[in-house]
């Protein structure tokens, strides 16, 4: 069942990290992030320790590090911001290669880069080893508000539908001589995004209608009977159970 995976960040595998229950991983991720964020910036060695912990988990999960590193690109806008900080912050300065840099600015930049990178890397590892469905089930087991879990579920489901719609819209625009890169065309792009929003809103209404038509009463019913026989990737159910 190679095509059975919901989202692009997921890396198919059978490691222990993959098999760990969603709610355990979710708690571990949140705990890890809280600890990282609350560590004083100047404890440089401790951040090395955090990275080591992550590296061990990644090695364990057998997700290729390059797979995760490539996806770290999402962090770039924050890095740019961090890069600016030593130039714009005030306070005592230090000279590096003939540039006057603010000391507190440098420290703040380091903090942003270190904490940000650790956070993104940890989240990517979580996403690479946990299928969306399992994340939702984890949230449910942690007794997060039901409505929140439902909204998350619908978001995951319709992300692809909406991006496909956006892609078709852009293709349609390009076919008529539109260049999304040229600032001259940005107003058109903005209107396009506006109409995408309306379309998505209308789709939301239609989905809701279809849900009502099948007896929806505000709560997602217990579908456990329909989940009992779910054998992920053809693994026997016993292993599945053992892994939980």
């Amino acid at each position: 069942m190679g095509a059975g995976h919901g989202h692009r960040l997921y890396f198919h595998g059978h490691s222990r990290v993959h098999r760990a229950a969603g709610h355990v991983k979710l708690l571990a991720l949140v705990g890890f992030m809280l600890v990282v964020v609350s560590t004083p910036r100047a404890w440089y060695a401790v951040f090395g320790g955090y990275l080591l912990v992550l590296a061990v988990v990644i090695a364990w999960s057998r997700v290729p590090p390059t797979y995760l590193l490539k996806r770290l690109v999402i962090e770039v806008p924050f890095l740019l911001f961090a890069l600016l900080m030593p130039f714009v912050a005030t306070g005592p300065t230090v000279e590096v290669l003939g540039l006057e840099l603010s000391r507190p600015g440098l420290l703040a930049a380091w903090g942003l880069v270190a904490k940000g990178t650790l956070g993104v890397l940890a989240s990517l590892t979580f996403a690479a080893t946990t299928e969306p469905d399992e994340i939702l089930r984890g949230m449910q087991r942690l007794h997060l508000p039901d409505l929140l879990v439902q909204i998350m579920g619908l978001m995951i489901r319709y992300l692809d539908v909406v991006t496909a719609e956006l892609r078709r819209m852009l293709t349609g625009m390009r076919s008529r001589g539109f260049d999304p890169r040229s600032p001259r065309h940005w107003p058109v792009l903005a209107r396009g995004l506006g109409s995408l929003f309306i379309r998505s809103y209308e789709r939301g209404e239609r989905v809701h209608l279809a849900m009502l038509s099948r007896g929806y009463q505000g709560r997602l019913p217990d579908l456990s009977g329909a989940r009992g026989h779910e054998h992920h990737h053809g693994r026997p159910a016993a292993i599945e159970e053992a892994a939980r």
Partner: protein
Amino acid sequence: MTPVLDVRGLAYAYPDGHQALFGVDLHVHRGERVALLGPNGAGKTTLVLHLNGILTAGAGTVSVSGLPVEKQHLQEIRRRVGIVFQDPDDQLFLGTVRQDVAFGPANLGLRGAELEERVHSALDQVGMTEYADRPPHHLSFGQRRRVAVATVLAMEPEVLVLDEPSSNLDPASRRELADILRSLDVTVLMVTHDLPYALELCPRSVVLSGGTIVADGGTRDVLTDRDLMAAHRLELPFGFDPRTVDSLPT
């Protein structure tokens, strides 16, 4: 015999004042397959949304197997009337095909083995059992349409209402869906612009135009009535002549 669908004098105006239905009468009996034809804007979708109480009649009544469509019966009405919407992406919103098919019967209170059995039998009826654990968005459009039909069949409805079932299907998927619909032992009301499909599947056709029923009869009779067809913007595809299609598969 009590009709499965009994619509009497149904009128409806949208909140913005636009009146879509002006006194519709329609009876559909058990085991019938009826096509609901009509030009765009005739009020077909508005009528369909009254059948399971999504919209509430401004005047007139709707009952399903004798049960009036009223607030206190909505849950049972929605079990009895299964609507398959035009865009399967609107109907399939959960992580796997199995969960999506389970959603309806689970809302009716089914759990465990009973639920599993419903899901299996519904998927079996549309030939999609082997796709049960796939996410719906990885299926082809034709497969998604079939799963959408299964999500409603799983509720064991008394009448299956299909909104444009053949739209966007390639000819093979269109024919496969026709085979499936013919094999089902259920009353069908099918909204469609695909007139050959109506002729193939539905012995009876009803024409809705301008918010009223303007014709109700044998599909072949309706499709060969030139004046009626022209008056209500109904046109047969190029080269299609209902008179030359003689034996229909049943």
